């Protein structure tokens, strides 16, 4: 299962949204909301078009494989940019005239059609684990059902009234006020914490044969849930993460071979505890990083998007630090390190009690 082509869209730039119910900074592409008042614009489609370039689509269409699948990993796709309670209109308010076409199976069908894919088209709504969770589907289809190409698109309407309101109300994101008081997003830190929401998209093509430009091989993938009294909470002992990793071990993963961990790394107290607990017994030589403090939490796109950013960084010779760490840490990195050889373990979690682990072997120079 070779990752032979990919594209990512994300930004480190932040925009302050002060007119929304819970003012906060977001990682935002203003162009995605241009002409929204026409009712004919849906921001995630514009995000998707940043990674689904005509050239990439043409490559797939003109080089068909015997058995192909397309998966739309749409995260919390039911948020759909709607402001359901309409508490107040904001700069992000809009009405999309064509709701059946948001991040639905219909939309997935159209993208697959453009690529000439017709063996299987499916969607996923596994919240913030979505794009990493579907690595299990990639593995299942290619390993057990003879698919020789699976294309994944991960995208979500992360910066939207609904999401920002939900996360603001739950105090899950850093507020503008917290940032003005000097708090910065980070993870596994004693002073800085939390995350901003970010727009992001990821496109990845997995094929059964490697090519010269293969960036990585997908080796293992598993998803799990944990005993929980709160569907949007996390077990402090990290059982969900641990079970997802254990599933990969059952498939033959030797945890000693993991040298880099791409954490879910939201920087919330509960995720810091859960993820560290789950990784405590992994081995004594891994390093861990997180991208959310750099590009925001891109929700459904985050798992695979961040994995690809890490694989790119490792190809350039380094594993980046977790931004805004205030203490020296050689494991949950406070400074970049040279990229070690070995396997990459990527973790993701989603509201609704879903945890995903996927293991990649970096390839190529």
């Amino acid at each position, binding site marked *: 299962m070779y990752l032979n082509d990919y594209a990512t869209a994300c930004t480190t730039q932040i925009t302050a949204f002060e007119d929304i119910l819970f003012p906060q900074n977001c990682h935002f592409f203003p162009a995605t909301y241009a002409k929204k008042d026409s009712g004919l614009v849906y921001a995630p489609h514009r995000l998707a078009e940043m990674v689904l370039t005509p050239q990439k689509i043409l490559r797939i269409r003109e080089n068909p494989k015997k058995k192909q699948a397309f998966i739309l990993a749409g995260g919390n796709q039911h948020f759909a940019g709607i402001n359901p309670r309409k508490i107040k209109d904001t700069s992000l308010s809009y009405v999309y005239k064509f709701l059946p076409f948001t991040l639905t199976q219909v939309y997935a069908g*159209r993208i697959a059609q453009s690529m000439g894919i017709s063996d299987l088209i499916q969607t996923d709504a596994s919240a913030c684990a979505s794009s990493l969770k579907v690595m299990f589907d990639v593995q299942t289809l290619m390993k057990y059902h003879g698919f020789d190409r699976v294309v994944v698109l991960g995208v979500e309407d992360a910066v939207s009234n609904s999401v920002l309101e939900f996360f603001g109300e739950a105090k899950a994101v850093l507020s503008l006020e917290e940032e003005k008081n000097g708090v910065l997003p980070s993870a596994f830190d004693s002073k800085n914490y939390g995350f901003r929401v970010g727009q992001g998209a990821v496109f990845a093509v997995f094929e059964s044969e490697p090519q010269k430009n293969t960036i990585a091989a997908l080796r293992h993938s598993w998803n799990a849930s944990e005993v929980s009294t709160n569907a949007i909470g996390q077990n402090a002992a990290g059982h969900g993460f641990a079970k997802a990793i254990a599933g990969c071990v059952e498939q033959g993963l030797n945890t000693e071979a993991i040298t880099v961990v791409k954490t879910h790394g939201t920087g919330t107290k509960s995720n810091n505890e859960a993820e560290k607990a789950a990784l405590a017994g992994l081995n004594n030589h891994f390093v861990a990083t997180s991208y959310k403090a750099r590009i925001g939490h891109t929700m459904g796109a985050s798992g695979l998007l961040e994995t690809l950013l890490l694989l790119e960084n490792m190809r350039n010779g380094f594993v980046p630090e977790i931004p805004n760490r205030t203490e020296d840490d050689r494991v949950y990195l406070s400074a970049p390190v040279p990229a070690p050889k070995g396997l990459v373990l990527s973790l993701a979690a989603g509201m609704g009690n879903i945890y995903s682990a996927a293991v990649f072997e970096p390839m190529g120079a």
Partner: protein
Amino acid sequence: MDFLQLVHEIGKVAKPMHQDTLEHPDWDTPFNELGYDSLDLLLVGLYICDVYVIPEEVGKTMQVKNCTDLKAFVDQHKTIEPESLEAALAKVV
């Protein structure tokens, strides 16, 4: 204004991932032979209504086979005439 060019440019917006394969329309060739399916025509219709300021409920009654039909529909229901192709596309692109 070149109506066929307008339709072609709107087609590219309605089908962004097929931009390079979308055939340039003529007056008589049915849309389904140019690469448009029913969903595409729904989107094209929405955009055309936006350009010509045709009420949405009227737009939803649109049933056209080709550009001749589409032009007739537009001429019957439009409330403005765009100054130019560029001005028209500025509304949707």
